[in-house]
């Protein structure tokens, strides 16, 4: 099938094309799911009349699948009841806002112009379930980051002084077995330490059982993904999430990367100082300065958005602490399979609450003070900082200073005096927003055929009608094409299609297999071969989209 979009202003930061600035329009054509050089062959034609054409949006950090999301759904039936199914046969399957069903996730993302979303915390023991769930999310390509760094197998190896090669083999085996795309570290070693009853873990504190420190876990796994040639760097949820004074940990963590690539996720939750009479302050400026000075570092924000949500994280150590703030008052925690854990805590961010208001401001400060739009990504850590459906509102906050300051004026008064937000004049341009939400995520994920509109790319194309109200503009895509098929028209779902799942396939020393078998037999109580997920188990038998990796010797 051939689709031709004429008269659109193409905004494609990857190639440097900016029809918004020049006013130039051109034809974009998709044939059999791929972008092609325009032809005059018969095609389904759309006259865009000067609307803006973008590559499909890519969210590199959003909790959309896996056991913790099902625990969130179970715990937050209120959310589900408050957001019932939208009318129409295409979306008549589930609902919810903070913890939406698989269909609601796919449809709502699709309406906003997103076509690819990565689940950032897949626990190995739960990987099969996460993949089953992702297969049921329509209109989105997906992928998942495997949580490592708290697994007893790894810590045991490290405590025994294993060679890096052996660790690389283990990481490679786990990525392949769980059909993962990248490695995520959540509170390095801390979740494991909590199983031994430690309640906090600093960067250089030893694990109560293994003696291994978060710093060594981080450095060892950074080396592993570098040497395995994984496209995405270590995706790190650092130590001491949410604790005032964790700014020092974050700064030390950036230095601990020692110049190697490292992605710091939901940085907002890790940018808290202890200044002021309330012992809670913004360290966004200090941290942004450090990020600006270290080109090896990329970040996503995890912006807090006001309202009811639910937080779901593998960081049970932190979430156990956060139980005290649960709203409504209930929460679930779980130690998982010598692998990781999870904590699910409902949360309401209130604009009249000092801490919540300042969290909001800290997130925006980070967005506005980190200079390079290719190294910062638009996230709310869905649903932890707020549901992804708030993205259009967030985009307007970043693109419209008057709107931002008007919002700021309504917040908790003391919080306002603790933030420099009002003085920041920066407004994101449309081109920068396209970088944040498409071009840059594709680049940092190594997805060379996504995030741009050059021939050969995947036919994920989004059309927005320009509106000076950027929230309105980004709330409803005029058209969304997934692999060249029209799935959204005038902000509404017109079709649901199956996506694919991206996985990375590094080469590794298969000599590790025997040891993995013994570990699973003796410790886990499950056969390694049953832990391992076959290609045919993904996407209803369609299998994954495989990115092969080339090792480097950095």
């Amino acid at each position, binding site marked *: 099938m051939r689709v031709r979009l004429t008269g659109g202003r193409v905004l494609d930061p990857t190639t440097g094309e900016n029809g918004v600035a020049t006013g130039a329009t051109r034809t974009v054509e998709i044939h059999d799911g791929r972008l092609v050089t325009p032809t005059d062959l018969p095609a389904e034609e759309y006259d865009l009349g000067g609307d803006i054409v973008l590559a499909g949006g890519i969210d590199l950090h959003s909790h959309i699948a896996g056991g913790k999301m099902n625990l969130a759904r179970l715990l937050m039936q209120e959310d589900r009841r408050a957001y019932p199914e939208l009318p129409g046969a295409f979306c008549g399957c589930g609902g919810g806002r903070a913890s939406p069903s698989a269909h609601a996730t796919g449809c709502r993302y699709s309406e906003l112009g997103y076509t690819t979303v990565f689940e950032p915390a897949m626990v190995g023991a739960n990987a099969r379930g996460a993949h089953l769930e992702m297969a049921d999310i329509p209109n989105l390509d997906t992928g998942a980051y495997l949580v490592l760094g708290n697994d007893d197998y790894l810590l045991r190896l490290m405590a025994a002084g294993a060679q890096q090669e052996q660790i690389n083999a283990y990481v490679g085996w786990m990525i392949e077995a769980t059909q993962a795309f990248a490695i995520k570290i959540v509170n390095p070693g801390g979740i494991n330490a909590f199983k031994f009853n430690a309640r906090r873990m600093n960067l250089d504190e030893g694990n109560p059982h293994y003696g291994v420190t978060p710093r060594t876990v981080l450095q060892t796994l950074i080396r592993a993904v570098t040497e395995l040639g994984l496209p995405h760097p270590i995706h790190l949820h650092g130590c001491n999430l949410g604790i005032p004074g964790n700014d020092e940990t974050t700064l030390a963590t950036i230095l601990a990367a020692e110049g190697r690539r490292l992605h710091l996720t939901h940085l907002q939750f890790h940018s808290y100082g202890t200044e002021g009479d309330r012992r809670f302050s913004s360290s966004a400026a200090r941290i942004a300065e450090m990020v600006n000075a270290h080109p090896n570092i990329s970040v996503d924000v995890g912006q807090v958005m006001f309202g009811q949500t639910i937080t779901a994280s593998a960081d049970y150590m932190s979430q156990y602490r956060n139980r005290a703030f649960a709203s409504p008052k209930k929460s679930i925690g779980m130690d*998982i399979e010598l692998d990781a854990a999870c904590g699910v805590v409902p949360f309401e961010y209130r604009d009249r609450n000092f801490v919540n208001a300042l969290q909001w401001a800290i997130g925006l400060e980070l967005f506005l003070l980190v200079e390079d739009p290719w190294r910062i990504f638009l996230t709310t850590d869905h649903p932890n900082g707020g549901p992804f459906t708030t993205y259009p509102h967030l985009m307007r906050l970043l693109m419209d200073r008057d709107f931002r300051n008007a919002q700021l004026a309504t917040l908790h008064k003391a919080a306002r005096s603790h933030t420099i937000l009002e003085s920041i004049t920066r407004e994101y341009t449309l081109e920068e927003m396209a970088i944040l939400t498409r071009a840059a995520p594709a680049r940092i994920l190594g997805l060379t055929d996504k995030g741009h509109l050059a021939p050969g790319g995947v036919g994920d194309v989004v059309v927005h009608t320009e509106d000076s109200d950027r929230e309105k503009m980004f709330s409803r895509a005029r058209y969304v094409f997934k692999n060249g098929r029209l799935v959204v028209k005038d902000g509404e779902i017109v079709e649901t299609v199956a996506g694919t799942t991206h996985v990375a396939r590094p080469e590794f020393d298969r000599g590790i297999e025997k040891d993995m078998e013994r570990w699973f037999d003796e410790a886990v109580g499950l056969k390694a071969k049953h832990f391992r997920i076959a290609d045919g188990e993904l996407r209803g038998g369609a299998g994954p989209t495989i990115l092969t990796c080339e090792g480097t010797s950095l």
Partner: protein
Amino acid sequence: MTEIESAPHIVRDVVCGFCGLGCDDLTIETDGSAVRARDTVCPEAARLFLRRADAREPQCSQYGEVTSEADAVAAARAILAAARAPLFAGLGVDIDGGRAVLELAARFGGVLDHAASEGLFRNYAAVQRTGWLATTLAEVRNRCDVLLVVGEDPTASFGRLFERLLPASPLFAGSRKVIFLGEAPGEKARAQLGGAETVHLPADDLVAALEAIVGLARGRTLPGGTVGGVAAADLAAAAAALTGAAYAVVTWNGATLADGALIAERATALVDALNLTTRAGVFPLGGRDNIIGVNQLLLWRLGYPLRTAIRGQVSEHDPALFSTEAALKDADVLVWVSAFRPEPPPDFAGKVIAFAHPETRFARPPEVFIPVGTPGIDHAGTVYRMDSIVSLPLGALRVATLPSVAEAVRLVAGDAP
């Protein structure tokens, strides 16, 4: 039967999907269509894996009369098309079968519930009110030094539970102590417990005794005498063992406890209290016939667990109103799905469409019976373990002559109006 006479085929490391414990080390012998478990399996697996060579070829039927598959499928479709309030119950299916049933229910409307959901919802009464702090099999295996078992000896329902939970050489637990509150451990349990120290507290009121342990763990003292039939001193010793544990675990089987909801609530409170100073988790038992998997599927597809009704593309959850027992009173059609075992549908005056195990013995012949293959014997599939985290790939052990639930249900869904 010897190996030489019949030249059977031996399949090792077979996954068992029946009770929810998720054993995946079975050895199964197959010979043509005959299947039988060998060596160390629990009685339930031995019974449910068994397929005799001389078993009759099961066929579709209507009102007990053999019909073609096409006729049975057409009849099922006609019944559903005319149905006012269908109930999709049993739901003993693998994930793919569950998807097919869910889509059928979405199309025709109806209530969805599993045959084993009573125990699950007793636990959910606690979970949905307060949440809980839980753990999984591999954590118990390696960390648990004090295990509190509430109620009956669970070995009757989960034949290899203690062998799986408490192997002899854990990575971390320095010792093993198992406290049985309620029934004493049977011979089989004792054999599996090996070197673990066991204590039996024969409570006559489980809730009261457990409540007393919660209080003790919170630092209260008991006045003496007995609580729930257990001497106060014994309860205090149990509480001391739990608070002194490095990693305490509380387990119970909600399905066999009439007071399951209260037990779940007290167990949750106990684990909450223990976690203030040490580490602990609940380990609720259950998970028969992939109830956990189907429940997970509903959660991600609909946003609701089992006991949910779909009407006009909108779903609604009510753990009381949409239980099988309650829904049967309002239903006019029962779609009975039970692929793992020959479990007959409940008494029902309306029309019955059964996608069921070929050996199912019906109290009265159903309007439509489509025999289906068993996941893990006749076809591959995925099932969840009781902890809701781990899921397992079932394989096929023989050439299937029967459709899977997914295939049969999709035939019925086929070109429905």
